């Protein structure tokens, strides 16, 4: 190794250590929020906050299946007890009525402030007569059993009225726990403390759930079919997505590397050359992840997945080095290296440069995902190229010999030369592709954010079915009321609820949930207090009201006393709810961040699914008319709009990247040569897009990125063909062989990716693998390659 080699190695070692340190300290995430804007508008911020940490993001729906109903109920109840004691969970609801008496006692204590039946009319003589008559009628029914002990304190039935209003949403219970209406499941709903985007926190919560279930199920005799735990929710999805991406990346990059290694071993017939080939790849991946970690703070799982793709690209550089440098002809390595640096390196350098220009267009993207991909690729490619140029030749042992690929190269040359006359066929391919794309123009692009989700269809169906079971709003329509303090937020929620109630009556929406069902704002409570008469007045009204009823004023003395106490009590606050079963329900709908408070009013569409456009318009108008503090979020539509925006940006940035790449080529070569380099690449992209569209695939972000990558990788081939056209025959056969091997390596790396269960990785693989192959073929087809001279004819194979 030369002195320069030692210096280079030292710098490489230091940089590698730094990169490793950065990578080990970085945080990794896998939720969809990384695909959201970096600098959102106020509305987008609301959306992002909702998706990341909001109420809906923290819900875990849990189902116990298998066994007998009794066993499911026992396990669910034990699970709920364990989770209530677990600090990972803020609340757990399972339909357990054990807290019922506590709830009833709490509501009874505050009934005149919490009951919406408390109006001035209720306490007139006629109002009292009717209300007490109603309660007496209730006493004749089985339910009256619960009302009887309270009768003398609460003859107007306020406690039951509140319980009834709160219980409207309640689920059917079987053996004391919630059960699905149709399927044999016991259900509970848990709310994690960690936000939905805190994937580590969510993973801990999922693990706690699984442990608690194993303990609960293990305590019972074995059930048939065995009891199983099913979970769903945004946090569960994030954990699952991260696991899927991680597994997929590890498995596929391992498989891809193995296949490429086999290919290269066959090509080189040299293990040291094979090992050295992977040095630029690994360096590129390290540099890429470290650059993203430094630039963004958080590395998205998908970016790591993208690392796999670098194998396909960076491996090309060393292939060009080992196959094209002349050592295999017998010249000593130093001389061959110098020749390689002179003849081959400029082409690689130009290829890297143009690729970097292309990816640079992604970096300023407003979307984390795209920007990370751009940053990762640039750092990775530069690192790989530098290592190939400065270190590999130095590290190559003097004795290293790779197989001479001149003969297969010559055969390839002959075949390609035969293709050349049929060039006109390319025009037909281009035309056919353009027609297919035009025919599919309406369904060409994917428009839904969930298309990016790696969650399998079966899990998404489970989620939908659990949501239907528990009657949880699918959190698609959410009214968010923000205010400086809790009471103002409650007042805003009340204003919204007042406007929504008529929509429910009309059937425009099925229903809504509001924190004011549990806790009215202070003004409402004061209004209720003012409708309560003073003791003497109440007693005299009661005397008239009780005429004809089988009860006397004397018996109702506790009622008069309680009303007087309520009349002068201070308003109920969220603090009063702390520790009661209702506290969890209230917490879920009311968030107090100290300096600001937020009330949530989730709205359920009639039929449970999506709102018709007209209904959505009326809902929007109702919310707008209620209070300026409230906004209606259609989470799915907002997320999809964001995604469409994102996709449009990906398309325009990719086009900008393509333009930058063309410009770079035009500057370094000539406009005409640049055109010749770009034409086969554009044709390759066009063909792949048409093939994907014809196969019924909708093009998403990663397809677009894949096409940019196709152009970046393909530009190397095109540039080499361009160089061959400029320089005549010297080394044509070996160059062709190296290109073919490099192309096979790329196609293998991405081809493996195409089989991933993670849609984004599969999309990348499905667009780049065929794209790279076509870029090579089209470049060769269009290259001005003369037929090989007779002297270059393959030598006869030595006799065996």
């Amino acid at each position, binding site marked *: 190794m030369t002195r320069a080699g030692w210096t280079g190695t030292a710098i490489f070692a230091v940089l590698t250590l730094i990169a490793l340190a950065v990578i080990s300290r970085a945080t990794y995430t896998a939720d969809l929020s990384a695909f959201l804007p970096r600098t959102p508008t106020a509305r987008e911020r609301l959306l992002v906050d909702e998706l990341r940490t909001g109420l809906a993001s923290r819900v875990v729906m849990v189902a116990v299946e298998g066994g007998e109903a009794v066993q499911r109920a026992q396990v669910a109840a034990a699970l709920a007890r364990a989770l209530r004691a677990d600090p990972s969970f803020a609340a757990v609801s399972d339909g357990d009525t054990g807290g019922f008496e506590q709830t009833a006692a709490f509501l009874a204590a505050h009934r005149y402030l919490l009951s919406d039946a408390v109006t001035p009319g209720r306490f007139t003589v006629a109002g009292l007569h009717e209300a007490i008559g109603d309660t007496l009628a209730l006493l004749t029914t089985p339910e009256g*059993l619960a009302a009887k002990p309270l009768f003398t304190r609460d003859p107007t039935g306020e406690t039951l009225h509140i319980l009834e209003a709160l219980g409207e949403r309640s689920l059917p219970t079987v053996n*004391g726990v919630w059960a699905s209406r149709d399927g044999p499941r016991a259900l509970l709903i848990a709310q994690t403390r960690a936000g939905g985007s805190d994937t580590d926190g969510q993973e801990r919560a999922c693990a706690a759930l699984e442990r608690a279930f194993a303990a609960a199920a293990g305590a019972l005799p074995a059930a048939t079919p065995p009891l199983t735990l099913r979970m769903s929710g945004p946090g569960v999805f994030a954990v699952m997505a991260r696991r899927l991406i991680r597994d997929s990346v590890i498995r596929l990059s391992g498989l891809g590397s193995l296949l490429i290694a086999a290919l290269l071993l066959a090509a080189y017939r040299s293990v040291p050359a094979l090992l050295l080939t992977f040095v630029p790849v690994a360096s590129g991946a390290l540099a890429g992840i470290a650059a993203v970690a430094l630039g963004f703070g958080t590395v998205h799982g998908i970016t790591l997945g993208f690392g796999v793709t670098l194998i396909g690209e960076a491996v090309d550089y060393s292939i060009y080095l080992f196959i094209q440098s002349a050592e295999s002809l017998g010249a000593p390595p130093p001389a061959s290296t110098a020749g390689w640096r002179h003849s081959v390196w400029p082409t690689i350098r130009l290829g890297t440069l143009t690729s970097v220009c292309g990816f640079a267009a992604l970096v300023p993207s407003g979307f984390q995902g795209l920007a990370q991909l751009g940053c990762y690729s640039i750092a990775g490619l530069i690192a790989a190229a530098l290592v190939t140029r400065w270190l590999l030749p130095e590290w190559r042992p003097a004795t290293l010999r790779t197989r001479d690929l001149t003969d297969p190269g010559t055969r390839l040359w002959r075949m390609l030369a035969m293709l050349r006359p049929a060039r006109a066929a390319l025009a037909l391919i281009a035309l056919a592709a353009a027609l297919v794309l035009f025919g599919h123009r309406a369904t060409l692009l994917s428009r839904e954010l969930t298309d990016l989700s790696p969650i399998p269809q079966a899990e998404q169906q489970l989620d939908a079915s659990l949501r239907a079971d528990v009657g949880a709003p699918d959190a698609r329509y959410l009214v968010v009321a923000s205010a400086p303090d809790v009471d103002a937020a409650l007042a805003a929620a009340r204003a919204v609820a007042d406007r929504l109630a008529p929509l429910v009556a009309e059937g425009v929406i099925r229903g809504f949930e509001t924190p004011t069902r549990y806790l009215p704002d202070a003004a409402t409570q004061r209004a209720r207090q003012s409708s309560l008469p003073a003791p003497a007045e109440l007693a005299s009204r009661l005397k008239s009201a009780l005429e004809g009823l089988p009860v006397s004023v004397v018996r109702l003395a506790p009622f008069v006393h309680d009303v007087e106490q309520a009349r002068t009590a201070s308003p109920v606050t969220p603090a009063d709810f702390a520790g009661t079963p209702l506290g969890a329900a209230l917490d879920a709908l009311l968030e107090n961040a100290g300096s600001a408070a937020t009330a949530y009013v989730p709205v359920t569409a009639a039929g449970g699914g999506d709102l018709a456009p007209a209904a959505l318009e009326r809902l929007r108008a109702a919310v707008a008319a209620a209070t300026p503090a409230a906004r209606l979020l259609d989470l799915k539509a907002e997320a999809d709009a964001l995604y469409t925006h994102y996709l449009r940006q990906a398309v325009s940035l990719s086009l900008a990247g393509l333009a930058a790449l063309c410009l770079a080529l035009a500057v370094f070569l000539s406009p005409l040569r640049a055109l010749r380099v770009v034409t086969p690449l554009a044709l390759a992209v066009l063909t792949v897009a048409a093939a994907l569209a014809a196969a019924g695939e909708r093009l998403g972000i990663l397809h677009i990125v894949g096409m940019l990558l196709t152009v970046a990788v393909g530009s190397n081939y095109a540039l080499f063909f361009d160089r061959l056209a400029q320089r005549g025959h010297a080394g044509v056969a070996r160059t062709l062989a190296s290109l073919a091997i490099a192309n096979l390596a790329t196609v293998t790396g991405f081809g493996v990716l195409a089989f991933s269960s993670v849609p984004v990785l599969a999309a990348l693989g499905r667009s780049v693998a065929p794209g790279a192959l076509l870029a090579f073929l089209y470049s060769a087809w269009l290259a001005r390659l003369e037929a090989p001279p007779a002297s270059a004819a393959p030598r006869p194979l030595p006799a065996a």
Partner: protein
Amino acid sequence: MSAARAPRGAWALLLALAGPLAAAAGSDPLDALMQRLAARRHGHVTFNEVQYLAVLDRPLESSGELLFEAPDRLEKRILKPRHETLVLAHGVLSATRGQHTRSVDLAAWPQIAPLLESIRATLCGDRAALERIFSVQLEGDAARWTLRLVPRDPDAARAVSAVLITGAGADLTTVEILAADGDRSLLTIGPELP
């Protein structure tokens, strides 16, 4: 003497055999009653109910109709003092007043369960269900019988100390519920409606 002893032994043998034989033939009065009740698959009668509550000065009266379909649908239509319909079906109690219907799973309400299950299981002649919830005692004869049902579940017993059902033949006459706090209610069943 030995000849006189032999028939005595034969009597003992006969008695030992006759016990199970008699039971199988339906001579156990509770089984016999249950079989008679089970023969009726549906019914539609009027009722009148008087409830004596300590908190009230006068008893509460209500009336309406009872409908029964074997094995597990029981409907109580209260027409006075105001309309309310209670339906017990498949272990779920639904109460409808005006526009509102509420449903309660009886398993979650051990206090309420005996009030309804006593009538349903008796009408069905479902001895097993009755004995699962109550300790059952039968008095009287087929022409005039009284079932005395005492809840087994401690939660239920805290609310209801006993249910007394009287009847004549295959017809129920009264259902009296004695609450643990001393209150009681008496449901009198009227004639079958057409």
